[in-house]
């Protein structure tokens, strides 16, 4: 049976009508128009649909929308703050980590989950953290570079703030 639920996405509360079987990825894309989150396989294998739910990475193609009531959802569209790209996004541009771009939103979200948990990861830890996200274009080299660079920049910004 269809239900009216409230979904908190990128800090905005949306009223949406969902069926119990509706997947978060479809609700985001089709009902909220947040098409930045991609659907590459619909089976939880490719990671393009990665979002953060209560700060933890989640595959929105394996998540029921109805189960997200009362939770906070962050998608790629919510990464920019005060009109500025998140350092991870900026590093992806600067380091050439983007080719076709289809994996990019999921990759950026997975990287955010990783760096939120571990601000100073080793290359091995970055690789492990992104191992659930496929990319067919880049061979991952520049993606790993970008996440390393973002971590460096974020730590530098953090220490600047502390010293201030």
């Amino acid at each position, binding site marked *: 049976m269809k239900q009216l639920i409230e979904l908190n996405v990128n800090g905005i509360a949306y009223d949406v009508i969902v069926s119990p079987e509706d997947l978060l990825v479809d609700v985001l894309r089709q009902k909220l128009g947040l098409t930045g989150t991609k659907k590459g396989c619909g*089976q939880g294998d490719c990671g393009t649909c990665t979002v953060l739910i209560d700060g933890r990475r989640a595959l929105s193609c394996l998540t029921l929308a109805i189960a997200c009531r009362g939770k906070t959802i962050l998608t790629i569209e919510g*990464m920019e703050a005060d009109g500025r790209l998140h350092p991870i996004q900026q590093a992806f541009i*600067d380091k050439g980590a983007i080719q*076709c771009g289809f994996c990019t939103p999921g990759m*950026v979200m997975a990287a955010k989950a990783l760096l939120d948990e571990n601000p100073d990861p080793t290359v091995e830890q970055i690789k*492990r953290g992104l191992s659930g996200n*496929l990319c067919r274009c880049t061979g*991952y080299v520049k993606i790993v570079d970008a996440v390393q660079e973002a971590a460096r920049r974020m730590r530098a910004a953090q220490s600047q703030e502390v010293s201030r």
Partner: protein
Amino acid sequence: MTASESNTFRWVGKSVPRVDAADKVRGRALYTDDIVLPGMVYAKIKPSTIAHGRIRRIDLGKALQLPGVLAAITGEECPVPFSVNNYKPTEMPLAKDKVVYYGEGVAAVAAVDEKTAARAVELIEVEYEELPVLLDPREAMARDDVRIHDWAESNINYEGKQQFGDPEDELRKSHVVVENSFFSSYTHCGFLEPQSTIADYNPGTGRLTVYTCNQLPHYLQQTIARTIGMPMEKIRVIVPTVGGAFGGKTEATPACMVACLLSRKLGRPVKITYTRQEVFFQNKGRHPCLMKMKMGFDAQGRITAVDFDCLLDGGAHSSWGFVVMWFIAALTHLPYKIPVVRYRGKRVFTNKPTAGAQRCLGGVQVRICVEGLLDMGAEKLGLNPYEIRMINACETGYKTPTVIEVRHSEFKKCLESVARRSGIVDKYGKLPFGRGIGMAGGHYSTGGAFLLYPSYRPHSTANIRVDTEAGVTVYIGATGIGQGAHTVMCQMAAEVLGIDYRDVHLVCQDTMLAPMDNGTFDSRLTYGAGHAIKRAALDVRAKLFEVAAAVLGVRRDHLDCRDGEIFSIYEPKRRIPFQKAVAQYLSSVGPLFGTGEYTPPQPKGDYEGKLIGPTPAFGFTAQAVELEVDLETGKIKILGYWEAGDCGKPINPMAVEGQVEGAISMGLGAALYEEMVMDIEGRMLNPNFHDYKMPTTMDMPDLSLEIVDSYDPTSAFGNKEVGEGPVGPVIPAILNALYDAIGVRFTEVPVKPEKILQALGKIESAGQPRLYVAQAPSECARPGCAPGEGG
């Protein structure tokens, strides 16, 4: 521009960020499935549940009664075969009379939403009369009584032969002769964006707009026109952002045709987006080939002759098969000098998802054979892998027996670089058991010389409009598929016009706005578009300089432009902003347009298949890999990977690196993990990314890349191919390194741990040999591999 001038480039050769990166990283880039049109409805396709059989009955009744269903069609709606090259086409929008692979569409439904369409598809009843399923091309050839397509005798789709010299005689006279059989695997392009189409037919105007992710929008426009029977000028194809393609999106999908047919029926926009499973069933990936090659050498290690037989497993439909068969032949002639060559190719239909085009089309197959035999020959001749390659490497000015001139080559530089950095000469044959090093070379055509239909028209055209309203706008039919085409095209236009590359507007991927382009394949884009854009921009520049010269009171041939200004090279104080000169031109002369085009030289020689393969330039690559085999588990660990590439002048080195890294990743996947597997009835067992294993971050070794110093004088900016060639050497470099590591010559991929363990005698190779197994230790027969001749 000349090589010496290339040092003064302002934008060409710079690793600038991509023009589309900011949108992509924000999730703002629109891919086809992201687009929603007012009044849009959704369609789904009913897949066949058998791999080969006659359709006895299709009942749409129950589906049509489902509330929300708007229309349903079968193959009767449009029984017109199409293919990308329109040579012996077999595929139809929906199968009519018979199905030839598991998952082929037999009916389609349009409904108010996707869920309803999916439910309706399940209500369609289909009855089949099953026919024998042919999965092995050798079996297919032996079963003329079971024709997959009625006209194809012995299920042979195409066959052809090229012969230059007398290979039998040459091989007889050769100092050393080596031969082997090889099998290239059945891989899939693996782009992450499933194909999607929105067809929007307007009954008021009789016009059809198609949004779809495709690499060749102008060919698609023509294919749609021919297939559904509409004048081409009433069809507009718009290609939104493409989420990876790798050759797999060169062709029209049947779903694209179905969307067009349903939209025309309903007068509303219709969207179809494939599921991942449908993407696999549709396939159009690499042709698996069973290959036999003989290679002779003289006492100095020079190749004397090659005799090459290639059996291509085409799967169910024609697709690119004709082109692939001849491309394999063409790519045999480089990057090594081979004076005598015989090629005999056959493409055979089987009841499997269709093989088509995948990045480094044809090259992957040839490289497995040539690079494997080079190492075998070197061993007999007492040469190391580097020496044998240097002895035979082509140089600038080399002419192949196919009358193709290599107008520029830095291949030897690539080999030298990789040998020096990897230390292969010192390490080869001396590493401890289980550890090995191997190398391979490669090349690819640049700027493809054939049109998919006979015509002498330009392959690339660029029109540039300059005014004060839109600034500089380049109209070009080229399609970006993630490789970075948009960025390099902006860099090239900006270079000539002396403006910032970010100020160039690009209008492409729209058949109504952009002039006809041959499409994104055969690594032709940057080369062809480069010439066209340069010529168009020079046209604009000449016109603009005339007015600027008058304003500045100098001769126009004294002018240059850079950083948004036009200035006298002798009196740099005499300068005028680009924009001001444009305003002056518009006022005193009128509209400012430039146009440029490029057509590659026509193929020479007189031999069968000559239209496919000749190309104005070639990119080169050399690669070496050091690896370690875990003797207990059979796992392969890559310890070092070195690549050196001759891509001419790199327009954007960062993008070049990205292309090479991605290419090597695709090669590693094919070498170690990837393979589509069928069961005995022709059902794919792994139509998903869980079971079809593509490399993840954890599988990528550190790569050491070098772009060798190079400048191709035949090219607009010295640039050549880089996107495809580097895929080719990966498999043979790994196979050669495995031989160095454990003394076994593997001749088929993927080399999974069980294959290593069988080779080491740690586990038994149970049962009958796997289809196509050559000399390599065999793996147990898999479901779907019908018993063949085996070893």
